Each structure stands twice: as C-alpha cells, then as structure tokens.
C-alpha cells in the first residue's frame, strides 16, 4: 500500500477521497500510530529523568526546591492537557515572532513533545514522590547502619526501592500518556501536509464517510494493541525490579482506568 508511511510524508501524497476501502483505512490509521508512538516514547524517556528530579525536589528539605516542585506538579496536573497544548502552541507562536530560532517549536514534532514531556513529568513526579514517601523505614535505617551516605545511599537503596514501589502506577501513567498523544493534532498544532496521528486519520475518515463505525473501531484496535505492548514491556521490567522478592510479595500489575488529562 502507498499509505503505510504516509504520516511521515513518504508515499502517496493525496489522501483517498472517494471509494474508501477497508484496507486503506487500516493502513492509514496504522501509519498514524507512528506519531503516537513517537510522542509517547520520547516524552516518557525524557520525562523519566525529570520526574525523578521533581519527586526528589518535592521531598527535599530546601523550601525553594520543594515549593517549585509543588507548583510545577500543581500547574501541570491541575489543568487540562488540552488547554496546555493550546497555550503552549500560541506561546510558541509569539516566541516565533521574537526570533526565528524558535521556529521548530511551533511544529507538532517538537512543540507537542515538550508539552507532553513536562506533563508526564508532573504526573510521574507525583507517583515517584508517593513511592519515595513509602520506602520502608527499615531499609533506610539499614543503609545508615552500613554507613551509606549521599549519592551512594540514593543509588543503592533509595532509588531501586522507589522505582520498584512506583512501577505499577508508573505503568498506568505510561499507558495514559500514550492515550493522551491522541490529543495533539486536535489542539492547535497543525498537521502539516496532512501528516497526522492515528486519531487524525480516523476522524478524517469518519468525516468523509459519515460512518464512525469503521474507523474508530480500527483505531481502538490499534490502541489496545499498543496498550498490551506497553503492559508487556513494563511487566518485564517489573519482574526484573522485583526478582529478589519472594513470590507473594511481588506487586501485581493492575490497570486502573483513570486520568483524562
């Protein structure tokens, strides 16, 4: 098919206009998933580090670090992602007028990734903060008894335990981050040359054919596939993080439906 890589600009230029076949819808919506995966993976990978920083900041004794982390989390968790996208897009547009250096920010590829990155950092930061607070007291006392201090203590005791405790919730966060990527092209960021994500194409077909019963189930199929992949990957990591624990203490992964951002 000519539409397999359409969403990144390779292949047939014109989208189908008449005589929509099932095959076309499948390929085009599937090709849109490239964007969803791109946004999700990039934001998650970068957001992982910022979220740990934010969690440590919120747990810090220094009031400046604590307050700024709290405000960061409040702003990004307390407002809709949809509005954040709009605001960021128009803010980037005004920046563009200041200097052409900011040009790439107005594209979805960079600008939306930044918003998603900050957003997921705030949500995951809260998750990691919760895990940090629930590290068993005994673990930290044992670290003290061994004379572990500072970075070494963080690296060997605090960080692995925090990660292990937070992992089920973090998996959930990852899944809903992928779902949130569907908002990008509906919130200001333009789909340049009709290179959009899966939902963009699905709604394109629904608009053209007036029949929502084909494209949206296809989209649902792809997203369920993506969700299952995320669960498999994160489940494997979870098994590695908990491999030293006896079987019955290992936390089970539970998917909680929540978080429309």
């Amino acid at each position, binding site marked *: 098919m000519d539409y397999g890589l359409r969403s990144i600009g390779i292949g047939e230029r014109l989208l189908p206009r008449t005589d*929509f076949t099932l095959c076309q819808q499948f390929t085009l919506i599937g090709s849109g998933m490239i964007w969803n995966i791109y946004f999700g993976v990039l934001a998650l990978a970068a957001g992982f580090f910022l979220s740990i920083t934010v969690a440590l900041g919120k747990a810090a004794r220094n009031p400046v670090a604590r307050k700024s982390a709290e405000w960061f989390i409040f702003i990004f968790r307390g407002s809709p992602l949809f509005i954040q996208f709009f605001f960021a897009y128009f803010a980037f547009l005004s920046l563009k007028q200041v200097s052409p250096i900011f040009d790439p920010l107005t594209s979805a590829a960079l600008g939306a990734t930044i918003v998603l990155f900050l957003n997921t950092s705030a949500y995951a930061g809260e998750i990691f903060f919760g895990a940090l607070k629930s590290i068993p007291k005994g673990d930290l006392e044992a670290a003290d008894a061994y004379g572990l201090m500072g970075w070494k203590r963080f690296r060997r005791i605090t960080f692995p335990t925090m990660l292990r405790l937070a992992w089920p919730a973090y998996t959930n966060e990852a899944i809903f981050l992928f779902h949130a990527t569907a908002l990008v092209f509906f919130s200001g960021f333009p789909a340049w040359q009709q290179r959009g994500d899966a939902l963009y194409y699905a709604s394109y077909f629904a608009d053209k054919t*007036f029949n929502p019963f084909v494209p949206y189930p296809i989209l649902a199929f792809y997203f369920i596939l993506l969700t299952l992949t995320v669960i498999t990957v994160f489940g494997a990591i979870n098994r590695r993080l908990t491999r030293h624990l006896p079987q019955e203490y290992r936390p089970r992964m539970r998917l909680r439906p929540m978080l429309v951002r």
Partner: protein
Amino acid sequence: MLEVCDDPQALAGVQWLTCYLTSGKHLLFYQSFGTVMLLLLVTAPVSLAFGFAGAGAARSRVAPLRWLGKGYTSIVRGVPDIAFFLFFVIALDQAFEWLRHQVKCPDWDAPIRQGSDFVVCAQAKLPLSSSPQWVHESYGFALAVLTFAIVFGAFAANVLYGAMRSVPRAQMETAEAYGMTHRQAYWRILVPQMWVYALPGLSNLWMILIKATPLLFLLGVEDIVYWARELGGSKTARFSDFPHGDWRMYYFGALLVFYLLLTRVSEVVLDRLMARLSHGQATAAGEAQRKATA
C-alpha cells in the same frame, strides 16, 4: 455596554481595556463559562446514574446482564477517551435519526447509507431543519452531555463496582442472617455503606471530569475554547472596533488559571466532604479523627 464605549478609537489605556472586555462578544465568552459549569453540573449526576446502573449490572446474578455491565465498565480501559467522544457524538446522532426514521417514514425504500452519505427522510432529521437556532444549539449540548455521561458513567461504574466490593463481607452476611432478601440487603446495607469507599475514586473522577470539559470544543459546542480562539485571534481595524494582535496566548493563559482555580477549589471542598463522611466510620480516616479528638 457602557456609554463611554461608543467611540472605541478615542479610548486609551485602562478605559480601552474595560470597554474591550465588556464588548458583546466578550459577554458571550463569559456566558460560555456558564456553559461549562452547566455541563459539569448536569453530567456529574447523570454519569453517576449510568455508573450506578453499570456497577449494579456487573454484580448481577443474571449472566447476560453481568456481561453487559462488565463490558461497559471495561470499554474505557484500552482506548483513548477522546476517541470515544468523537465516536459517540456521531454514532448517537445517527442512532437517533435512524430510530426516528424507522418510526416516521416506514415506507421509505431507499437505503440509508448511500456511499458516503447518511440519508434519512426530512421529517426524521434531528433537529428539524426548520427549527430555530437555539434548538440546534441545545441539541448539540444535549448530545455532548449524553456522550460525557456514557464515557464517565463507565469510569464511575468501575469506581462503584470496586466500592461495593470493599464493603466488609460480614455486613452482607449479617443481613442474610437477618433473613433479608438479596434486593433488601443490596439497598439497605450495601448501597448506604459503599459511598465512603467510593468517595476517593469519585472525587478523582470529578477532577478528571473538570479536565475533560475543554473537549466540548471538539464536539462542536461553542464553549470557552471556541471563544478564546475566536476572540484572541488578531483583529484588524476593518472588522473590529478593537483591533489587536494575536492575543490567543493570553486568552488560553486565562483559561489555564480558570481551570487551576476550579481544581483547587474542588480539592478543598472534597477534602472537607471526605472528612465529614469518614466521621464515625470504621476506616483508617475515621479512626484517625477519633484519636485526634480523644
């Protein structure tokens, strides 16, 4: 409109801003905040009812009803909710028109789906093409409410189903020991006790609902996002009495602040409500309250 504002060109500074912010379109913008609050207030109870029905069905002893309830509670798990919003709005609209078509035009023989068109007879159109503008608007709004209620009902069903299961088993056993029927035990024992278990989940849901309201824009309702885009875009002196550059950033900044305030206020109120509901309950929160006063 204020009288000073009759000649906008002559104004400057604060006065210009006051006149600008009280222009007719801005009043519509302020009204749309009302639309959002109305949506919240209508959707919350309706989706709670949907959720209650869904959770009840998921616990049912009749297998098909149980499958229906379980299916409903799990539709929201794998797929982005925005896809549901976009799907249900069209699907519901077509379903209503199709039903009316079946009732009002039984002797219509042309197929309804003709290629890329969805054709029903003129009497079955919703709303009727002859009806006034406000009917069109409120029909759009009602569709949006129903869509929100279906999606959030599924979320709520999940929460309530979990809450029903966290009511201590001994309570139900006691009810059975007293000879209550299944129905009596459900309404008199289970339902009154489950709310305290459900409240954390439901308050979470309320926050999510608040944050989902800007999606109204995608459903074609003229809400705050619509007006912020409309009013913020740059205006030249030819088309507007109040020419200005691209101010959409400031408008969306204001929306951001609005939502932050709304979530903050809800957080405080829900915390108070939780404290009140936990009072005297055999839960950790209730126990903590007892210890604090003792």
